[in-house]
């Protein structure tokens, strides 16, 4: 080992030159009122949401930051900085806690399905119940007021969610959303749904269009999968740059191809080149996730620094992940939304199951690719799927074959 190992990813506020005019507009919105900010991945939505939380915190206002899922909640905590704790929870947990407080019972849920123990919220029953909120709650609201709400990935809750909040007396919203990143279209909201639910004019919605996160080649690859819904503005492509690293497609696991062990070694060395770098390996399912974790843990190439930490996340374990230090994170695709990695490795892409709407797998790839700041690596492990092959760009300037 020849180098000191500082992996800390210290949070820092953006420079004023790094905030564009659209973000200025989002930040200048009054504290009170209903506000919706829409933009594609990498346009800085979460940054403005967190800066809004900081402003409320400084002004000693009650607020709640609602993140899409537990991982995003943890990531937001790190991004928020350490001087003031972020008052946050997940969208679902926050809603359930609220329901319990108001109705003194658990939120209605659908029966569990065969594949998991999770029970989705029964939004139909919620909609029926919420038409008449309890009077003691409304008195309480009049006396004490309600906190400001900051909602990240607001597209991923249905219109009933917003109607409920409105009916319960919440008045001040700061919602950031991108409807092209809806995970499940059946239980999501469009831009118009949100605007209608919280009672705002479409012209008041702030649109973020500049892509900060991705390099141009990554943005081009993401655009290849872009669903093209005009309701969310298409992120502007970063400026012309044909020499930046082009996303790479690697094949492994077959004769004359690298093995998983060799791929793991390359990933560890990539991490070692910059210990602060956060590499996200995004997997299609738990089997692949576990395989990669095991391979990385068993690999011991000669490195300049200590071996990086290899973290993984399983939704049933709900373990805490450390976003404050560089290293390698192995997570499933459904958990990656909203997160940002310096390098994103999309592992075993042929194993993503197409679901009932053909656009959904394209949306999933769009979301996964857009996680990356500097580089995207796609891995295919033998058993190539024809269906997926048709989805991939053929232009090697968009996706280089290795």
């Amino acid at each position, binding site marked *: 080992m020849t*180098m000191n190992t500082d992996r800390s990813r210290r949070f*820092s506020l953006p420079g*004023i030159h790094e905030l564009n005019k659209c973000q*200025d507009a989002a*930040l200048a919105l009054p504290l009170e009122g209903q506000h919706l900010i829409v933009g594609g991945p990498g346009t800085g939505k979460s940054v403005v949401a967190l800066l809004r939380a900081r402003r409320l915190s400084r002004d000693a206002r009650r607020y709640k930051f609602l993140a899409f899922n537990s991982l995003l909640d943890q990531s937001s905590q790190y991004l928020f900085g350490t001087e003031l704790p972020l008052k946050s929870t997940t969208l679902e947990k926050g809603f359930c806690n609220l329901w319990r407080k108001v109705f003194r019972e658990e939120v209605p849920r659908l029966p569990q399905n065969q594949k998991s123990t999770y029970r989705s919220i029964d939004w139909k029953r919620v909609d029926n119940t919420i038409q008449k909120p309890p009077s003691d709650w409304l008195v309480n609201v009049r006396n004490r007021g309600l906190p400001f709400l900051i909602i990240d990935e607001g597209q991923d809750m249905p219109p009933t969610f917003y109607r409920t909040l409105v009916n319960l007396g919440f008045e001040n919203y700061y919602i950031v959303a991108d409807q092209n990143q809806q995970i499940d279209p059946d239980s999501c909201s469009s831009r118009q749904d949100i605007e209608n639910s919280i009672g705002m004019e479409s012209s008041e919605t702030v649109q973020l269009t500049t892509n900060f996160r991705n390099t141009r080649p990554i943005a081009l690859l993401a655009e290849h999968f872009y669903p093209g819904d005009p309701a969310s503005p298409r992120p502007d492509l970063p400026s012309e740059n044909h020499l930046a690293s082009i996303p790479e497609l690697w094949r492994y696991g077959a004769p004359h191809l690298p093995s998983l062990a060799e791929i793991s070694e390359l*990933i560890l060395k990539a991490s070692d*080149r910059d210990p602060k770098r956060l590499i996200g390996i995004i997997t299609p399912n738990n089997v692949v996730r576990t395989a990669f974790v095991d391979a990385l843990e068993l690999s011991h190439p000669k490195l300049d620094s200590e071996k990086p930490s290899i973290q993984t996340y399983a939704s049933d374990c709900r373990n805490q992940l450390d976003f404050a230090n560089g290293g390698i994170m192995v997570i499933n695709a459904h958990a990656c939304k909203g997160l940002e990695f310096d390098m994103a490795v999309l592992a075993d892409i042929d194993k993503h199951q197409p679901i009932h709407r053909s656009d959904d797998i394209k949306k999933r790839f769009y979301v996964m690719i857009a996680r990356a700041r500097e580089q995207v690596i796609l891995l295919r492990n033998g058993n190539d799927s024809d269906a997926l092959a048709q989805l991939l760009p053929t232009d090697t300037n968009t996706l280089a074959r290795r």
Partner: protein
Amino acid sequence: MAKQAKNLDAKKPSSTRANKKAKSTLEQALFDPDQSEQYVQTDHENSPVTSNTCVTSGEMYSTPEDAKSITALEAAPQHWLFVTNHLNLLYMLAAGMIMSPAGFNEKHYPDPSSSFPGWLPLFRGSIPQQAIDSATQATKYLLPCVVAINLDSIQAQVLLQSRDGAFSKCSLPSKIDDNISALLIRAPLPLALIKDVYFCSQDDLAVCHSAASNSANTDTSRISFKIDPKPFEDTSTEPWPVAAENMPSDLNVKDAPPAQGQATGGVVAVLYHIANRSSLCCCAYRIATGSANNPDFQDICIDPTLAHLLEWLNTGIVSGDATEAARLYWDVAVELVEAKSKANSPKPVDVVLAYLSGSIPKLQDPELKKSVTTLYQDLRSSFGLGAGTISELFERNTEPLSRSLILLCLRASSTDLLRFSHASLSDVDFILAAILFGIRDGWLGLPQDLRRPNALVQFVESRMIEVEQRDRDEKVISNISNPRPVPLRELLITRCFEMGVARREALVHFVQSQGWKEAVQTTIRLPEARYHLIASQEGVEIIVKGGITSLSLDIDLETILRKISVWPFEHEDEIRTILQIE
């Protein structure tokens, strides 16, 4: 420049002599009948301008001889008002200069300076209402602010606009008549000229502070803010801007982003922060701040690339007598600066790759060509899964040019560079990397950790203005002189040679409190005699009858210099305080 500034600062008679001298030069420049007739008009004496008319300072003289007879031009207090909005103000604070629109990289919100690209319009008395309105028209969330600027310390050619819209030239410092309502001065100007910033109300000021807290590089603590609705209410109905046909052609200047100034600011700051690392690093900093001596110039020449540091700082380019490798390095530096002067500038890594790719075929030296080709391939691979560890990259790429570029591509911020260490990295490698990082980040993009101490901030701000004004025929010269901050290493070396008892004791105490045993040596001198020596597990005991005649504590300076070479060094302030002790 410094010499000229000193003369201005001298007592009145000298100042008068200097002004007289300046006046005659100005007369020469102004005594151009075409220009005089074109735009110098005044109703001062209701007399038309003639070709024999010489105009200085807004005053009219019928003949040059009359002008010479004026013995004293007392410089009246030069307090002027710059109108903008709160977001432009914050951007300028971050950039370290009062700039015209091109300096904002498309983040400029229109204000009165938009009408005169490259110039800063300054008002006095009642500000035209239209000027104030123009600062907030772009969008509803902008708030107007009025920046009071003191031009007392400025020497510059300016344009004066009278209340009836006529323009004339003037050379500051000068007395300016009351009929002059606006002054145009070339951008950029130093922040040090700001006296106060006025907002209309407490609420407006609160919004400005709130906006400042959204970003890392908007430090408002140095600014004196005041609340006064008067400048915003007691406005004039004079039109702003004046009609285009009345504008003189002198106003057509290039409004370019201050890329070279910002790059220089970044380089000076990063070199300051690495100066404690070694003697060569300290030498590079002295060269960058114009305080180098002959040994410094000799030392820096050990590397043919580093030898051109001063030339690049002074001119922005490197001459043809540089080696091919040196020219390649400095051309990359020039490309990085050029990229910053464009809107939507490409990423620095991309600039480097593009330049290397284009340069390889043109390289003459086959060894250099081979090493740059290897470097290029390694850099491309390092963005994917292909390249190895940094050690492997350094083994394949041994030239300082290569290593500095590898670091530039693999480390995101200047603080990451300062914290980086590698056994095979030389001082030259590190200094060359530091220069590129400073250029890449520029003063505006430097992490907050490096935009301090205050002495560095003030020095960098004045240095950036000097660089931006350097290539102009008509410069804006400020006689505000900010001395360069002295790195701790340099201070220690200077102050440790002449150390009084109190300072020595304080330093010893500090060193011992830090547990730096190797940094202190105690010498006990005993006369020739028999001594009782007791050695035990706890140590050695010498029993001396009659007391010790001589005991001295010596500081091992090299050890202390080694301790302070790690960035950041947490006890810098303590040692500086000790070094002040007589």
